[in-house]
């Protein structure tokens, strides 16, 4: 068992927003009666202590935090990502067991690899090694189909 100093730290207590007492003091955008303490790093709205959310040394308002999480702009909040490179590789390799399906899956593998290149990628793995292998295999399958179709139609 490894114990760290945080074990002895007192539980953190939340800050309280101060009420505006003097005329001319800036108020919070969300709570006009509360004193503004800091602007949001994204939208610039004034925030009181209640609305100030600190994330990696940036101060954000709840709306920007929610929007950032939904749109994938805040990597720190991302909880999942799709591996398009793995999907493309599976689409390229697995149908080889039932090769007639490669007629449909090879273009799908290439499309998936190219689509994934424009999407958020894995936080921990590189994208292109798998995607490139998928594109090469799928291209070879398409080339094979082209040769087969050429031979069939030439003979016909």
């Amino acid at each position, binding site marked *: *068992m490894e114990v760290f100093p945080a*074990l*002895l730290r007192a539980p953190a207590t939340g800050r309280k927003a101060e009420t505006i007492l003097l005329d001319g003091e800036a108020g919070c955008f969300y709570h006009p009666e509360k004193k503004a303490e800091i602007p949001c790093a994204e939208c610039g709205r004034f925030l009181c202590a209640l609305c100030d959310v600190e994330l990696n040394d940036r101060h954000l308002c709840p709306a920007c935090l929610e929007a950032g999480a939904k749109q994938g702009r805040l990597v720190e909040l991302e909880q*999942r990502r*799709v*591996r398009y490179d793995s999907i493309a590789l599976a689409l390229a390799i697995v149908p080889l067991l039932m090769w007639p399906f490669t007629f449909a899956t090879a273009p799908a593998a290439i499309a998936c690899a190219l689509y994934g290149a424009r999407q958020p990628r*894995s936080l921990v793995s590189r994208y292109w090694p798998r995607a490139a292998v998928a594109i090469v295999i799928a291209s070879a399958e398409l080339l094979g189909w082209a040769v087969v179709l050429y031979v069939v139609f030439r003979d016909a």
Partner: protein
Amino acid sequence: MPTAPKLYRRVSGRTASFTGYHRLYEGADHLLLVHSTGIREDYRRFFYRDLQAIIVRPTSRRRDNAVAWGAFTAVTGLPALATALAGVPVLPIVLGVLAASFGAVLIANQALGPTCECHLQTAVQCEALPALRRLNRAQKFLGQIRARVAEVQGVLDPEEFAARLAANRAAGPVAEAELPPVMAPEAPPTA
């Protein structure tokens, strides 16, 4: 899209589960536990500043696995030997390949060392780390993480820790009078 800078360094091997595999990565200010299903990755972050303890507990899984894989090896290997001596044509090869596969898993299980369970404690959670199932890997991980946490939290003074622990034990549980009041449930409406 430009290539993102490498944010994480791998600190554990790949540990398989029924739904995919787990892997642990080290970031600048947090640990990242990745559960991958092959087509999707799920992330959990544990910040160094929040880590209170890492608990590593040895388990008997290595022995249990050895018994199971040894039994499979024996169950397939002995009939392979018997059928080979009896001159049966194909069956000894099939059983021999199976026995060799089971034997290889058995040897790998022994070579990877003792097994363990690893848990990570913060102020609000105690999470299992399924990526760490071998004791030697867990110890190596502890050596790496100790330095990282010390950079953020500082080093725990053993004497201070013992004194605080003794003080907490002496204080005992929180008195009922100090707890916040619990609202009584509303009585159901009567007709």
